[in-house]
């Protein structure tokens, strides 16, 4: 039989992804963002424990809109990564491993993360 070269579409961006796939890639992306935030967070720890004026300077630093946006850019992935991590742990003990419950837990994770992020957003602002 003559072998044919059939067209292959492996471009993930053109394929409609099921919600567990979205939940999974968001978990990965949020992890990468948090990784990049580590030095910044250690810096803040150092500043907060240096002298009282450094501590107060941090308070001022966080009143700026830029700092608040950066805070949100770190807090939102943290919330998501935390919730998606719980989803992973539940799957490790066989909760939510079937299709129906996997989709349900993926939706819950995403929606709950959005809600908590909005609440955190108000708190930050």
């Amino acid at each position, binding site marked *: 039989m003559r072998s044919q070269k059939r067209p292959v579409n492996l471009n993930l961006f053109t394929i409609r992804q099921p919600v567990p796939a979205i939940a999974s890639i968001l978990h990965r992306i949020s*992890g*990468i963002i948090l990784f990049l935030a580590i030095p910044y967070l250690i810096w803040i720890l150092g500043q907060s*424990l240096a002298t009282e004026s450094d*501590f107060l300077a941090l308070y001022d630093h966080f009143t700026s809109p830029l700092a608040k946006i950066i805070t949100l850019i770190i807090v939102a992935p943290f919330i998501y990564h*935390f919730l998606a*991590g719980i989803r992973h742990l539940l799957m*490790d003990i066989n909760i939510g491993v079937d299709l129906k419950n996997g989709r349900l837990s993926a939706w819950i994770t995403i929606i709950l993360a959005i809600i908590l992020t909005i609440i955190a957003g108000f708190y930050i602002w």
Partner: protein
Amino acid sequence: MVKTVLGVDHQGLRDWLFQRISALIMALYSICMGWFLFTHPHLTYGEWYGLFTLTGMKIFTLIFIAALLYHAWIGMWTVFTDYIKPASLRLVLEVAMLFMLVACFLWALVILWGVN
């Protein structure tokens, strides 16, 4: 099988377990820290600094950061292995990442050491 330049035969199961354990440690610390911040609105320098003078807090924090570094290492190793096929580039990035993580741990150690 993926041949890792940095690796001998990778104990995947151990990584899987440590990923979970480090996650739980970090979750516990985050909840405790969240509780502290929640119960100390308008946090003062004295309260914050006082917290970190406690030896237990310093140790818990260092354990948290060690867990964070290991957890981040496993996660980023997975990401690099998935997306960066050229072994030499991956090796460079992995070493750079390792260096960055170890430096952050030592930085935190120095910071906490200076709190009396």
